[in-house]
């Protein structure tokens, strides 16, 4: 609990929000997958998003770095509004790092090359410097000794930690996590969650889609519950989990608890 308390103090409530979604709607064909989403996230805030599968969690966070385009509403990230303008797209991709459920490491590059690729080609960093930076982050996620191996030679948990290091090498202001542990075996989940807790301790703004309740309680400032494309409830983790206000959340929580 003490860790969580120290963590929570980093939220800057009076600054302009790091991310703001206002009236966001999205359709896949005729399927209405995001319905009037309104969400402001402050700098340094850590938000956990949960909800049943297919409820639009991935779609929402993928709209934030524009891997998906929204069709109505307004998304502002770090003061930049998302639009068709390619300049704004470049700027946002630099500020927002993303970690995927299926790692998506580049199999033809070594761990070190995976981490230095974007710093060299996007940040225009000299290779030496990029490698030093990459090693720093690889040490932070505690796998510097794997730097010269290829992704295929690493375990799932190690790969996911590399993916986190790879995103961090761009020095993003905001990190998005899309179910980072759900493709992992149970014994590997902890090593990845520990890495994420450590990241939270540095004051990073984070949005995590995850069903790891323990992680949410320990780290999250706020939990957002989504169902059928809309945000049904938001609140402080303990309050939300212990005192769900809607039937939908109750049902979801009972399913999750049964699952564990």
């Amino acid at each position, binding site marked *: 609990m003490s860790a969580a308390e120290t963590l929570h103090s980093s939220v800057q409530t009076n600054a302009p929000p790091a991310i703001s979604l206002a009236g966001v709607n999205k359709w896949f*064909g*005729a399927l209405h997958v995001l319905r009037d989403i309104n969400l402001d996230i402050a700098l340094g805030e850590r938000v956990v998003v949960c909800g049943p599968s297919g409820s639009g969690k991935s779609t929402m966070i993928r709209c934030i770095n524009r891997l998906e385009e929204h069709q109505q509403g307004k998304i502002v990230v770090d003061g930049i509004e998302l639009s068709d303008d390619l300049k704004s797209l470049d700027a946002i991709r630099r500020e927002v790092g993303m970690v995927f459920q299926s790692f998506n490491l580049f199999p033809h590059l070594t761990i070190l090359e995976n981490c230095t690729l974007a710093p060299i080609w996007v940040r225009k960093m000299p290779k030496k410097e990029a490698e030093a930076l990459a090693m720093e982050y690889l040490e932070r996620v505690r796998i510097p000794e794997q730097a010269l191996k290829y992704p295929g030679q690493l375990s799932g948990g190690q790969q996911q930690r590399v993916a986190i290091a790879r995103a961090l090498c761009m020095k993003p202001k905001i990190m998005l996590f899309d179910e980072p542990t759900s493709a992992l075996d149970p014994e590997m989940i902890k090593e990845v969650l520990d890495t994420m807790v450590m990241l939270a301790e540095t004051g990073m703004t984070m949005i995590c889609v995850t069903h790891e309740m323990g992680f949410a309680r320990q780290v999250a400032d706020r939990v957002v519950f989504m169902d059928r494309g809309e945000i049904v409830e938001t609140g402080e983790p303990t309050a939300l989990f212990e*005192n769900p*206000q*809607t039937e*939908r959340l*109750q049902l979801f929580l009972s399913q999750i608890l049964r699952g564990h």
Partner: protein
Amino acid sequence: MSITTDSLPVAPRLAPALSVGWLGWVRANLFSSWLNSLVTIALAYFIVKYAIGFVDWAFVNAIWSVPNDAAGRPDTSSCRDNKGLGACWAVINEKHRFMLFGTYPYEQHWRPAVVCVLFVGLYIVSAMRRFWRMELALIWAAVLTVIAVLMWGGVLGMPYVPQERWGGLPITLILATFGLAFAFPLAILVALGRRSKLPAIKALCVLYVELIRGVPLISLLFMASVMFPLFLPEGMNIDKLLRAQIAIILFAGAYLAEVVRGGLQALSKGQYEAAEALGLSYWQKTGLIILPQALRLVIPPLVNTFIGFFKDTSLVLIIGIFDLLTAGKTAIIEPMWQGFAVEVYVTIGLIYFVFCFAMSQYSAKLESELNHGRRR
């Protein structure tokens, strides 16, 4: 703990017009951007233009039959005047029996016709999963025997027809199907040999496969037509068709062996180990556990390889064997029919296309089914 009745969920709304339904599909797939719209319009224009041109040539302006001249021979002058404007299907009308069955005695044409139907039936039966059992080999043996009897005759009141008189589509089907029937067992042996631990056997198989795959089929057919006679003891002779058939079997064997080997490699090591752990001998293990699984895996590439042979049998034209393509080419040798090659090739192409397209669709469907089954 009181539970408020659910805040009413946001009702799903219709997506902005123009992004769904029929219009949405057209917009997304044909006119999604300026460039795309331009491409669509230009392409549609050319398609319509050439389609109209083709219909004009093939149907509207086409000549379907020609009158006979005083000497009783077809008078093709009307076709010649129409050249470039319309097709002369009269050539097909006149020559289709020759193209299909070559110089086979005219009044006996029902025999090769039945043979073609039997072949198609054999393909259809082999394509059905219900029949993927050992018994299929028996069906093949039976049907191929019936085919041989029908072609040669000499029994059951059917007059004997020497092989030199055979021609057309049956030859193409015979070369491809008998080629497959004999090459397949050979291919299995070679594929097993190539994975054998015995160095001499492995070396022989590698040599065979790589030699055959390194040279064009033509060179094997030349070999069959000029060198095979030298290989045999004096006085012993085998006919030209059989020689070509042997070349095609040797050729197909090497390619099929590689396909089968792919299946053997795709099987997990666990299957081999489990079979060994049961105490099965090499041949039991191979026949009962390994081959049934490996062969199932490779059916789609096998069909694709077969499509390849089916097309490649046309190469026997070069050594003068009377298959479908040769028959077509010969049909237009007579001076009055010269110059109507395009019509003949289009017709023959249609026949090849029907066979190959059916097989390739089948193999694609099977592949997606097998993949589906494996993923689940």
